[in-house]
C-alpha cells in the first residue's frame, strides 16, 4: 500500500512538472503525428448506441446530452449535446436546450428529433434492447416496452428542433446520471430506418456526432477512427487518427508496446509487474483509476440454505467472509485492485463526492475483530450451527464453491479461497469447477452450490445501481443467490420520488448496512481498478467509468518524434 502511495505521489509530481513544462496550450513538437495506437482483444462489432455497443467506440464517435469525465474533481458529467437544462420544480420535467452547432459527420444538424427517435427506439419492443430499463422512469416507456402501451405515449418529445423534453413518472435524482449512457444518445431516423436490420451492424451505414468517425474496419484485425471535422468541439480534438489493433496475446502486445507500435497498453499478469517497474523508472506513465465494480462471494440465500443447508445463517456467512484476508488475497492472486469491505464501489459518487467516503466501509470494523483469528472465526461459525440446531462437528462439514474458467488467475482465486476457508474454519471446501459460463449458469440455477464468485459492474453513477442488484428478483431469481429481504426491498422502494439527497443517503446507508452487516448476503473481496500504461509521449489521456470508458478526444501526442 505504502509503495503504491509513493508511486502515486511520484506520478502526480511527474505529471505536475510535465504539465508545467508543457504549459496550458497544446503545442505539438515538430514531427509528431497526432496518431494514437491502441490494442484490444476484440471489437464489440456493434455500432448501435441504443444497444450500448463497444463502449470505447461509442464514447469516441458519439455524443449525448451529457458527457462523463473523470478529472481531478472525480467522476462527474459536463454538458455536451445539451447547452442548458431546465428542471421543473417537482423534478419530473426535464427540458434540454440543445446546442445548435452540433452536427452529424454528414453535415446534417443534430436535432431534438434525433434524440426523440433514439429514445423511443430504445423502448420499442421489437428491437429488444437490453438497456431499455434505463428509460423506465419516463412516462409511458415501460408500458411501451412491455407491449401494453404505444410509442406515441412515451413522454420524450422534441418540442422544436433544439428543445427536447422528457417527463418522468416521479422525480428521480438518478436520472441525470443515466444520461451519459449511450442508450440515451440520439439516432438518425432516416438512416436507421433505411438500414433496417443492418442498423448498428454494418458500420458503413453509420454517421457520427462525436469527436471521431470510424473510417476503416478489418474484422479481427484493425479499426481506424479519424477526427470528425463536423464535431462541435473539433477545435479541442487533437488526435487525427486512432488505430485499434486486435492483439490476443499479451506477449505480442508487449512486443508492440516495447517497439513503440502501441502507445497505450492494458495488460495483465507478469507484464503488469514488468511495466510497473518501467513506470517507476520513468520510462512510461501508469494511470490507475477506480472502476465501478465490486467482486466477491455470493451465498446461496434460497430456502434450504444451499447444498450444505447452512447458508441461511448470517453468522455462518460472516464467518466465511471474515476468513478471507482481503489484502493478502488481492496481493497474492491479482497484484492489483483494492480490498473491499462494502458493496458500493468507491468509484461511485453521490451528491458531488465519493459515496464511499461519505458512509465509510461497512463491514471493516467487525472484520478486523475476526480476520486471521481461527478461534474467533470457528466460534462464530459454531454459534451459527447452534442457531440452526446442527450438531455435525465442523470437521465433517463440506461447503461447495461453484466456479468456472481455467485462467491462471481463476485457478489461483479458487485455490486461495479453498485454502483459507479450510484453514481458518476447519471445514472442507469442495471446488465445483465447471467448463464454461453456460454450465456454471445451469449448476447455479439448479442450486448446486453454497457460494460462488460474482459481483456487479455499475452502468450509471449512483449507489442505487449497485444496491438494486439485491432487490428481490431484480435480475432473475438466481443471479444474487436468490437473496430476498422484505425490509431491504421496502427501503429501496421508498427511494421512488425521494428528491432530498440527505434522505437518500440515509436510505442507501441503511440498505447497504442490511446487506453487509445484518445479512452478510455478499462477501465483498475487491473493488475493481483500471491500470493503463502510457508511453511518455501520450498526454492528457483520461479514463472514466461511465458512458464513455475512455476520453480520447482531449488526448494528444508530444515528443514521439514521428
Amino acid at each position, binding site marked *: 500500500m505504502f509503495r503504491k502511495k509513493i508511486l502515486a505521489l511520484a506520478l502526480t509530481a511527474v505529471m505536475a512538472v510535465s504539465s508545467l513544462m508543457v504549459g496550458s496550450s497544446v503545442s505539438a513538437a515538430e514531427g509528431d503525428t497526432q496518431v494514437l495506437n491502441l490494442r484490444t482483444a476484440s471489437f464489440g462489432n456493434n455500432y448501435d448506441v441504443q444497444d450500448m455497443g463497444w463502449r470505447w467506440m461509442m464514447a469516441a464517435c458519439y455524443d449525448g446530452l451529457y458527457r462523463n469525465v473523470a478529472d481531478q474533481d472525480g467522476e462527474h458529467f459536463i454538458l455536451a449535446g445539451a447547452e442548458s437544462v431546465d428542471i421543473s420544480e417537482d423534478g419530473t420535467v426535464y427540458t434540454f436546450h440543445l446546442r445548435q452547432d452540433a452536427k452529424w459527420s454528414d453535415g446534417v444538424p443534430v436535432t431534438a428529433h434525433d434524440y426523440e427517435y433514439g429514445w423511443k427506439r430504445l423502448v420499442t419492443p421489437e428491437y429488444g434492447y437490453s438497456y431499455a*430499463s434505463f428509460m423506465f422512469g419516463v412516462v409511458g416507456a415501460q408500458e411501451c416496452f412491455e407491449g401494453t402501451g404505444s410509442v406515441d405515449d412515451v413522454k420524450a418529445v422534441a418540442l422544436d428542433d433544439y428543445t427536447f423534453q422528457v417527463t418522468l413518472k416521479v422525480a428521480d435524482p438518478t436520472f441525470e446520471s443515466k444520461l451519459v449512457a449511450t442508450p440515451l444518445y440520439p439516432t438518425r431516423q432516416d438512416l436507421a430506418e433505411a438500414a433496417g436490420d443492418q442498423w448498428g451492424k454494418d458500420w458503413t451505414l453509420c454517421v457520427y456526432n462525436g469527436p471521431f468517425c470510424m473510417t476503416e474496419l478489418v474484422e*479481427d484485425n484493425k479499426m481506424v477512427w479519424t477526427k470528425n471535422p463536423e464535431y462541435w468541439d473539433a477545435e479541442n480534438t487533437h488526435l487525427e487518427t486512432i488505430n485499434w489493433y486486435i492483439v490476443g496475446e499479451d506477449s505480442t502486445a508487449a512486443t508492440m508496446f516495447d517497439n513503440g507500435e502501441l502507445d497505450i497498453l492494458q495488460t495483465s499478469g507478469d507484464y503488469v509487474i514488468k511495466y510497473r517497474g518501467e513506470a517507476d523508472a520513468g520510462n512510461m506513465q501508469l494511470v490507475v483509476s477506480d472502476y465501478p465494480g465490486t467482486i466477491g462471494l455470493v451465498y446461496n440465500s434460497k430456502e434450504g440454505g444451499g447444498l450444505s443447508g447452512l447458508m441461511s445463517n448470517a453468522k455462518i456467512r460472516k464467518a466465511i467472509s471474515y476468513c478471507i484476508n482481503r489484502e493478502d488475497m488481492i496481493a497474492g492472486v491479482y497484484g492489483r485492485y483494492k480490498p473491499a469491505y462494502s458493496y458500493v464501489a468507491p468509484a461511485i459518487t453521490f451528491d458531488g463526492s465519493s459515496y464511499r467516503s461519505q458512509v465509510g466501509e461497512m463491514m471493516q470494523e467487525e472484520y478486523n475483530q475476526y480476520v486471521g483469528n481461527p478461534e474467533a472465526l470457528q466460534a462464530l461459525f459454531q454459534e451459527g450451527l447452534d442457531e440452526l440446531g446442527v450438531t455435525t462437528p465442523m470437521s465433517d462439514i463440506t461447503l461447495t464453491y461453484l466456479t468456472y474458467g481455467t485462467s491462471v488467475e481463476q485457478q489461483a482465486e479458487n485455490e486461495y479461497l479453498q485454502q483459507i476457508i479450510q484453514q481458518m474454519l476447519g471445514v472442507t471446501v469442495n471446488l465445483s469447477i465447471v467448463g464454461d*459460463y*453456460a454450465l456454471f449458469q445451469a449448476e447455479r440455477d439448479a442450486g448446486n452450490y453454497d457460494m460462488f464468485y460474482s459481483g456487479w459492474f455499475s452502468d450509471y453513477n449512483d449507489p442505487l445501481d449497485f444496491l438494486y442488484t439485491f432487490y428481490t428478483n431484480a435480475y432473475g431469481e438466481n443471479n444474487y443467490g436468490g437473496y430476498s429481504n422484505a425490509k431491504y426491498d421496502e427501503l429501496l422502494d421508498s427511494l421512488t420520488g425521494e428528491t432530498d439527497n440527505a434522505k437518500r443517503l440515509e436510505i442507501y446507508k441503511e440498505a447497504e448496512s442490511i446487506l453487509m452487516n445484518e445479512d452478510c448476503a455478499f462477501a465483498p473481496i475487491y473493488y475493481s481498478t483500471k491500470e493503463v500504461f502510457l508511453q511518455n509521449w501520450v498526454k492528457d489521456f483520461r479514463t472514466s467509468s461511465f458512458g464513455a470508458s475512455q476520453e480520447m478526444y482531449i488526448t494528444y501526442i508530444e515528443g514521439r518524434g514521428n
Partner: protein
Amino acid sequence: MGRYIVRRFLEMLLTLFLIATATFFLLEAVPGDPLSQRADKLPVQSREVMYKRYGLDKPVMERYLITMKNMAKGDFGESFVYAGQTVGGLIHDRLPVSARLGIQQMLLGVTVGLLLGILAAIKRGTIADYTVVAFSVLLISIPHLIFGLMLQKIFAGNLRWFPTIGWPSGDELWFGGWKYTVLPTLTGCFSYIATYARLLKTSMLDVVNQDYVLTAESKGLSRGRIIRKHILRNSFIPVMTQLPMSVAMCITGSFFIESIFAIPGIGQYYVTAVNNQDLSIVLGETVLLALLYIVVLFITDLLYVVVDPRISMPGRKK
C-alpha cells in the same frame, strides 16, 4: 465414371444433412444458449424481449425445421453474438485470408518436407538423415503458439525485419503484402515440414527394400532414374492419403497463428463461435468444412488412380 460421380454427390448431400443435424442437436444439448451470458445480468423484463427478438423463444424442433429450411436455401442466418455477421460474409471476407495462409504454409511446408524426406531416405544413416529426423521431431513437438511468439519476438521485436501483426487486405488479399505473411507462414509450415519429411522417408524406406527396386538396380538403371520412376512414385500413396487431411485442416488449423498475428481468418472465428455457442456460425462453418473435406477426399480418390493405376475406380467394370 458419371454414375460414380452422381452417387458420390448424393452421398455428399446426405452426409452434409446428417452433419448439420448432428451439429444442431449437439449444440442444443449443451446447457445454455448464445444469449445466456449476455442476458444473465439483464432485468427480467428485458430478457424475454431479447429471446423473442432472436427467435430463441421457440421450441427446439420448430427452430430445427426453420434452420434446415433456410439452410437448404443457402441461408445459415446471422451470428447471435457478432451482430451483422453471416456465414456468407464469412466465406467472402475470411475464407480467402485463411485459404491464402493455409496454401502458403502447405506449399512451403510440404515442398520442403518432401525434399528433406527424400534426402533423409537416400542418405540413410548419415549425418544428413539424423539431422532431418532430429529436426522433424523438434519441429513437431513445439506448439505453434511458442513458435509464433518466438519468431514474433525475434524477427519483429528485436530485429524489426517484419511487422508484428497484421495481414494484407484489399487488392493485396491474394497476392502482395508479403512482409505480413512471412512470419505466420513460417510458423505454420514447420509442422508440415516435420510431418511430410518423416512420412515420405518411412514410406521410401519401405519401397527401397522391395524386389522391383532390386530388379531395377540389377537392370543397371541409374540411381536418379530408380528414385524418380520406381521409388518416389510408389512411396507417394501415404502422402496422397495425408494430403487431403492437410488441405482440409489448413483452413481451420491455424487458430493460434491467426490469434497471435491478428489475422482475420476463419479458424479463430470458428473457435470463438463454438465457445459462444453461436449456432448459425458454427453450423455454417461446420457444413462448409465438411463440404471441403468431402470434395478433397473425392479428388484424392481420383488421384490415387493417377499415382497407382492398379487401384481401380469404384463402379468401373472389371
